[in-house]
């Protein structure tokens, strides 16, 4: 790994200032960034740790839902969101393994936007709002394809605000070697309709399956998606599963998620 200068600011304002220097990059839990730096796929000149910023940590009820600080670990969300938004807590509790959950954070996960990551499905499926150091971005606008988001250079995610659905569930079909999702589906039923977000399947990363949303908005039952079919054309195909396999898995997991949501 190439060397770098390490700074650990105590406020969002100081972090943003530190990130304005040449070659600076944010470090949150490091569960993605450290392995990436070891492979020399990233070589920041300055690493700005966000783990010392108290205002970016914690889970609390706020207007219209649940607010999760961007530097909150998966383990904390699993524990503290359980009483408010069980499906989100369960998603966080199913990420990786206990040691990954004790360091990895929601902000790092969505900023990274790995096509097989769990949180992007939870954030998009909930229709959450991503709060950054300079604006608020709707989840529908935030995720912009493989490893790409609406974030500008030097802009950091500070919080994610989740509206709380009437019913929701995330079902992950685990890829046991990586512990990521081979494919995962998040379903959320609101008074205004149903949202379905799919990870680990689309070549462009997380996406909403709008046909299933329409069908489930009419009838929120596992069988409601039986008649639908999803094309494998834009699906990921690798040695773990072909595009057609993933397309079928999306449908199966959507049914299971609806059943789990009850």
């Amino acid at each position: 790994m190439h060397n770098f200068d390490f700074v650990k600011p105590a406020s969002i304002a100081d972090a943003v200032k530190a990130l304005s220097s040449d070659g600076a990059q944010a470090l949150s839990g490091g569960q993605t960034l450290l392995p990436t730096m070891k492979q020399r796929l990233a070589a920041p000149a300055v690493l700005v740790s966000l783990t010392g910023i108290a205002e970016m940590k914690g889970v609390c009820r706020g207007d219209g839902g649940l607010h999760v600080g961007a530097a909150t670990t998966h383990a904390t969300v699993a524990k503290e969101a359980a009483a408010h938004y069980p499906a989100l807590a369960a998603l966080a509790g199913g990420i990786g393994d206990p040691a990954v959950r004790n360091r990895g954070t929601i902000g790092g996960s969505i900023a990274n936007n790995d096509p097989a990551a769990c949180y992007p499905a939870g954030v998009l499926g909930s229709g959450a709002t991503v709060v950054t150091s300079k604006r608020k971005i709707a989840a529908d606008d935030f995720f912009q394809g493989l490893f790409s988001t609406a974030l500008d250079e030097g802009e950091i995610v500070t919080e994610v605000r989740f509206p709380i659905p009437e019913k929701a569930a995330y079902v992950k079909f685990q890829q046991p070697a990586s512990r990521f999702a081979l494919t995962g589906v998040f379903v959320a039923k609101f008074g205004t309709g149903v949202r379905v977000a799919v990870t680990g399947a689309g070549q462009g990363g997380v996406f909403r399956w709008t046909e299933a949303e329409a069908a489930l908005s009419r009838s929120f039952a596992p069988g409601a998606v039986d008649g639908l079919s999803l094309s494998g054309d834009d699906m990921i195909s690798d040695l773990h599963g072909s595009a057609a396999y993933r397309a079928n898995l999306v449908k199966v997991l959507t049914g299971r998620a609806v059943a789990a949501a009850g």
Partner: protein
Amino acid sequence: MTKVSMTVNGRAVSGEVEGRTLLSAFLREGLGLTGTHVGCDTSQCGACVVHVDGKAIKSCTVFAMDVAGAEVRTIEGMANADGSLGTIQQAFQDHHGLQCGFCTPGMVMSAAALLAENPKPSEADVRHYLDGNICRCTGYHNIVKAVLAASGQDVSAVAAE
């Protein structure tokens, strides 16, 4: 180089590190605590698990400077005060929970974190919690048995498969 200080196994320690110095390297090369093993160095195997402020983390996936000031506990801190094996370590020995022993420090630290959270885990709880600890030798069965035994549960009915 920057000076970093933390508490390791109850002892205040400090040393010179670079930004890129991993906690695993600081422990092993800086402090000579080579009980913490580095199996993969790619965040997959869990051999390097230590506790930071009471939580199990992979020491190969954290920078030493990011945990400055923290309370760190390693496998060297798991023995009893008189040097005899701690409860979990003894259970691993009694139930043949290791063969080559390379994964064992991480297994013991993960098991300790589990038992702190959940003092009477079920077999399924143990297997689920050890998801991030890979063992190439034992087939896991005796590790699970050792952790259950360390929690004070009767394992006489848990057959060796």
